[in-house]
């Protein structure tokens, strides 16, 4: 049985991730395409087959009739990769949210800030979802709000 760590380890180096992406994009990859790919990614044949073998062992890709393609788990992982890439593209904004949270944000203000900064609805939903972590943040935030005057809070959020 494969674990999340196994999956992540199999695609945790740049070249393996590139191979994985290639198989996903091409859907089925023949040995002829492999020759092209080996040249493009600058891998030796041994490195190429080693990485492909790791991806297969992790259950992400399969080989049939000399062609590689994603299997069902690979499709889920690839989809997750795309989402994480999107999160990486928003890294700066997510970091900004954290740094501003350290100031004086109530949950409503935090939600407004997230709405203003981010476009991706899925990421917004994750950040405003009520979980344990959020509840404790809310508690802390509420305590802070008692200390901070309304004037400061309103002037802060007015800026956004």
């Amino acid at each position, binding site marked *: 049985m494969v674990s999340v760590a196994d999956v992540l380890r199999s695609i945790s180096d740049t070249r393996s991730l590139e191979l994985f992406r290639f198989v996903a994009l091409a*859907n089925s990859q023949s040995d002829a395409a492999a020759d092209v790919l080996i040249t*493009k990614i600058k891998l030796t044949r041994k490195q190429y087959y080693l990485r492909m073998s790791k991806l297969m062992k992790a259950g992400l890709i399969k080989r049939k009739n000399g062609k590689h393609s994603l299997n069902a788990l690979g499709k889920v992982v690839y989809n997750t990769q795309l*989402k994480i890439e999107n999160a990486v593209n928003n890294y700066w904004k997510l*970091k900004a949210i954290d740094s501003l949270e350290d100031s004086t944000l109530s949950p409503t203000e935090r939600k407004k800030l997230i709405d203003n900064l981010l476009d991706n609805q899925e990421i917004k939903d994750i950040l405003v979802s009520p979980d344990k972590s959020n509840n404790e943040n809310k508690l802390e935030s509420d305590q802070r709000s008692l200390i901070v005057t309304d004037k400061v809070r309103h002037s802060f959020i007015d800026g956004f």
Partner: protein
Amino acid sequence: MISINDIQSSISDSRTLGLLKRIGLGPCKSEVLFHKTKFSRKQYYSRITQLTKAGLIRRRKGMYFLTSFGKVVYTYWMGIERALDNYWQLKALDSLETLDHIPIEQRKELVGNFIDDPEVKDILAQNKWLYSPPSSPSSPSPVTKIENQTQTSEAAIEKQQQQKELPLKIMIVEDEEDVLLTYKSFLDSESYTVQAFTNPYDALQSFIEKNGPYYDLIIIDIRMPGINGLQLYRKLKAIDDSINVLFISALDAAEALSILDDDMDPSSLIRKPVSKEDFLKKVKTYFPNRPSQVLNNFGDLS
């Protein structure tokens, strides 16, 4: 800037992933976390450092939290874990080789018979992401796409090199419009690219919207309404620790220095009023390896 590989390699061992999961359950005191994970102190801190460097967790008031980025990534990874809970069902689906070649409605029904998790079901039933768009003369082939990806790192280095040759970008924040225009004109005369703000909130928002290191120098007036220059500095610094900041103050020098944080360099302060020469001289100290912007432009012409 963080890369997807940095993140994945940071948690590609099961014990580090376990540590991240523990923090993902809710904020946790460092000592409690240490005892629960049963790591040696060295193992514990090395993993904590890895996760912090990958931007997934942060420490505040002795507690470890997921960062916003960490929360998003963690949620997505948990999606993989849910998929692995359905490992044998996924294997069974793989054995049905027709899955990729049947109409979407039939595929949805088939996937629905095997998988309960709505998200996993959706990914497999939709299958939209799997294929490149219908081939058109303009759409790149997968090989071209990979080629583009492998060239990314080389392009990034080239881009960095080009950026070094681009005009330096300076943000200036000063609430008095006439003073702001004066400073801007000083900087314009040296061909710097200047973005000027009278409102610190607008400056902060612009900084965030750049979505990455953009400004080579930020010049901030200390005394401003709303949030003052030091508060703005702390917010900017929390977002990007590597920023260069120059403060301007009409306060008495000793008074201004006394309100600066310990980690601030007293030489990063300009006392108002300031002459054009002194102002530009101070700005240039931040770019010792760069020729004058004006000279640089002449160089380009030649």
